[in-house]
């Protein structure tokens, strides 16, 4: 029923605005209104998502934790063993090595780039002005057979192989419901460097008054992607800080000589 309601609201809003030119801010404000309202979104301290990835017939259960203070991790369960990936305590980014099953730190550049995302919790568009981000409506585009608004989001520049680069993402908001259905950004590193990465969002469902996309498909633009299905989203989960801590193995000398 609630879903129906929101769709109807979105339809009405869409109709009202149809004759007027949309601005990026109008689209974003309708978006936030449609998914639950800015106050509610701002009040959330963290999310815990249980998901499944189906890869080549292999079903991999995941647990993704993201907190407002920037702490985050993904826990993969393989054969009853938990492998933590992309764990970030606000300072150190680390993952479990698949071979040794021990924690290893990510390189400094990757960590520094992630630190820039600490203020992006829940949605980078949330309070984007205070964060100094730029938002620009580029126009209408059809994607997935659906009419969308294409919005460009420019965040803090990131550093790639020692050189500063712009951090730009293009979001496609459904003109009917005003929610993003696709996001694209240039892949900056790794074997697909230079190509466009793409995430498709769907199955928006309500969790405690807020709508989240429960289905994501990620991959390279123009190629079949990898689907992730969320089974459950828990808001404001209680997570022990120790979970994010990098388990030090090497003794760090307190006072380095010379």
């Amino acid at each position: 029923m609630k879903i129906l309601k929101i769709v109807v609201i979105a339809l009405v809003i869409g109709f009202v605005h149809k004759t007027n030119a949309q601005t990026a801010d109008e689209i974003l404000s309708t978006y936030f209104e449609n998914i639950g309202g800015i106050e509610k979104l701002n009040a959330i301290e963290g999310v815990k998502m249980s998901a499944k990835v189906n890869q080549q017939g292999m079903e991999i259960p995941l647990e993704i934790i993201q907190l407002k203070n920037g702490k985050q991790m993904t826990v993969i369960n393989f054969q009853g063993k938990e492998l933590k990936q992309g764990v970030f305590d606000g300072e150190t980014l680390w993952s479990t090595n698949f071979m040794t099953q021990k924690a290893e730190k990510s390189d400094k550049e990757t960590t520094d780039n992630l630190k820039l995302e600490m203020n992006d919790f829940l949605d980078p568009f949330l309070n984007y002005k205070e964060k100094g981000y730029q938002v620009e409506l580029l126009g209408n585009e059809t994607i997935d057979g659906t009419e969308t608004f294409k919005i460009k989001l420019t965040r803090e520049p990131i550093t790639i192989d020692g050189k500063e680069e712009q951090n730009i993402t293009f979001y496609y908001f459904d003109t009917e419901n005003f929610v993003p259905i696709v996001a694209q950004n240039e892949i900056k590193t790794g074997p697909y460097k230079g190509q466009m990465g793409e995430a498709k969002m769907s199955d928006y469902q309500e969790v405690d008054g807020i709508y989240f996309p429960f289905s994501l498909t990620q991959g390279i633009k123009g190629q079949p992607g990898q689907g992730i299905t969320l089974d459950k989203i828990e808001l404001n989960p209680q997570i022990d800080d120790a979970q994010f801590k990098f388990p030090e193995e090497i003794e760090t000398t307190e006072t380095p000589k010379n």
Partner: protein
Amino acid sequence: MKKMSSLLVWSMILLSIAVDAQTDHILSAKNLFGSLNARHIGPALMSGRINDLEVHPTNKRIIYAGTAGGGVWKSNDAGTTFNPIFDEYCQSIGAVGIDPTNPDNVIYVGTGETWTRNSVSVGDGLYKSVDGGSNWTKLGFDKSERIANIIVNPKNANEVYVAVLGALWSDSDERGIYKSIDAGKTWNQILYVNEKTGAADLAMDPNDPSILYASMWEFRRTPWSFESGGANSALYKSTDGGATWNKIHNGFPEGNLGRLGIAVAKSDSNILYTVIEAEEDERKGLYRSDDAGENWKQLNNDFGITVRPFYFSRIVVDPRDPNVIVKGGLNGSISRDGGKTFKSLGNMHSDIHDIVFDIHDSDRIYAGTDGGVYRSMNGGTTMEIVENLPLSQFYHISLDDAEPYNIYGGLQDNGSWYGPSSSSGGIEARDWNSIGAGDGFRVLKHPTKNIIYSEMQGAENVWRYDVENNLLKTIQPLPQKGNAKLRYNWNAPMAISNFQPDRFYMGSQFLHKSEDMGDTWTIISPDLTTNDKTKQEQENSGGLSKDNSGAENHTTIFTIAESPLDQNIIWVGTDDGNMQVTVDGGRTWTNTATAIEGLPKNTWVYHIEPSSHEKGTAYAVFEGHSTGDMNPYTYKTTDFGKTWKSIITDEIVGFVRNIQEDYVNPNLLFLGTEFGLYITLDGGNSWTKFTNNMPSVAVHFIDLHKKTNDLVMGTHGRGIIIIDDISPLREITSEALSKKVHFFNSKPFVMKDQGGFSGSFGTETQFVGSNPSTAAHIKYLLPKRHTFGKMSLEIQDMEGKKITTLSPGKSKGINIVDWNYTIKQPKVAKGKTFSFGGFTAPRVKEGTYKAVLTKGKDTFEHEFEVVYDKHANLTAEESEIKYQTIMKLYDMTQDLAYMVYELDATLEKVTNKKLKNSLNELKETLVITTGDNYVGSAEPQLREKLSELYSKLASSYDKPSSNELDFLSMLEERFNNAQSMFTKYKKKAKLKDLQLKSFNDFINE
């Protein structure tokens, strides 16, 4: 909502009736292609023609390549690899220009290649990006056809200069030098000569942006000749930002001039170089000025400097040394003494069009050739090809019926090739086989023998290659006593009969037929062309530089098409506008192109597609771009050509090269134009451009594979592009569109067993073509994208038991979801390390399955069939034994997992030390309890052995061997022993309050 849409339909119908009472029902494919995606397979090993290279002025990692037919590619690793950034727009590129004041963001692209060979494509204007190439805006110049240079004032980014070379085959006043003072919003033509003379080159003084040099070139092509040079070709200079211009010819040769290149030395802008095409051979070549153009001195007229000016006139000066200059050419030439003497650049593909120096290091040079981009680390002596630019320019393609099928085709200046539509690990450079030299065009596989026909330009050689025995001969029809000289097109037509495998056709001005694979020939037609003598004087072609390569041969046959329904019906199209048909195997011929409404006389017949549904039906594609007529022309006849009806609508952009009719649904047609692929579902009443991973590239030839329903396109700039299995398009009807979900039918899916090693050596920097998916495809049509609410997709057996869940597609239109025939991987006992075999998911048995799509409260079901791969050669009984054995191991793996879970839980509670030890000892025989996942691994235990055998069988095509079965019974024994031992320990432990998950909960958690 429903009311509204039906109202809409009604008003549309009414509207169409009002406009044209005869217009048929419209069934548009707009927004319906969904996840039907194009797949690029290259090849990239010979790459393709490059028109312009451009370096970022401050970041040496960034290089742009403007290609002749494959768009703009950007490298961000100093030319090691490139990615396309201009796919949605015209792919023929003349120039790339970077704003030096904002080089990360502002890029200009001028479309339309400028090295004006016979086969060039056309541009459609100037584009600009303000975000490094992610998004583009068109700035006009719609009729410019080719743009030679774009220069942004380094001191004022609002000031932009564009050199428009303009139309190649017609008069045009959109030529010359243009200037914008508002960063491209508005433009002024600041240098114009006449409608025949365009701007071939433009340079700016690096120290003074108000000083400009522009070369103007008088030139014209017709389909049968080329003219370079005239009284209006000249070199101009402006010292006031283009307001006034003066010729600077002091020291130039007398008489008419041709194409001139111009370059200014960055390190000393008084030093200029120009390359001059002149009347006298002795006075052609390189000229230098040391006083900013006041006076010129001839330095060199070597072959490498004067060769084919229309194709090579780029001259580049080392930004750090005014005496190091490089000239494009057949091999490319470099001088280190200010232009007095030259040596060739290092070995690379011939035909060098552009060269750029690295911004910091002159040892690092990049060259753009007819065969891709090359890079040098030693000043141009050793050249190394960029291996990931799939820019191959196909003229024609054909397919065979092998599994996987092969694609055959010929390329501009890059020979002829064939390669597979799929290959282990992807389609790599080494999967392609050379099957012809020179320029390649049509390549045809003998329908039953392992023989391939190929050709080079003008049928100079038509090869018949016996693949099996590696034997080669040429078979082109030769002139015979009493017959006229044979006139072959540059791209001479050949065809194989659909009825007689050894029958082979070739076209000169006559149609030649051979019944013995080209050993003997009979002429079965009169001269089918207009035989207009004024179009046959190719030895006079070229203008100031004679150029009789054969590329301008005219009044020739261009297309031969035998009806797939009747071998006596043969269609022949000529380059001078005749479309001849015989219905009696060549005894009589009728020219059916005499009066087609809206079609200018003598328009090139580019392709004829006889219908596979009706004998009298055919489609004819005409195109007149080489006379300056860029309109699309495609007609349909249903009466052997007596009458023709246009099937072109306003939706089509670009002239047409090819059409493909579907074998099943006669209303489903595919149209290849200069700017991409168009599809109609309603016989041509409405067309929709296909853009899913499909660039706006010139589609020269299309074929539809009968077995796989793959649409295969030979593009002129992006290699072979395939849309796998277009069969869903056949089923889109207004009825299907009115359903909440429409499932598409499919043939039984084969669970492929075939597969080998991929050995992906070198693919880090090489282009690798993607393979088609071998999974089962659940295909359905959604009338609207699913965005809100839950939507899920399950595979079930016929009893409704869930086999697996998949991520459903949500797009409006066609959705294709892959299922690779497997159930979930087994739950594996928890150990210290992973049991890698346990990651294998086993396949289901062959049979019928259900896809169950749940969308909100609605459930939709679709049954489909999967079958075993015949190549494995197993009997039904053997397949059953294989399946049962794998499932036995699967179950044992899960039983063991539960046993270990129970054991761990027991261990936690047990207090008795001895019992604890016994349990631990037992556990150590069940799973690995030490070591890591790499070389620190411990001795494998029961879990590892079970999963090893399980995955060995599950990944094999074969039935279990006796060796494997013996091993299984050994493991079973060990398993049973472990189980009874554990039962004994459990009794001893007497843990009555032990809380355990049930087996099912444990497995499904």
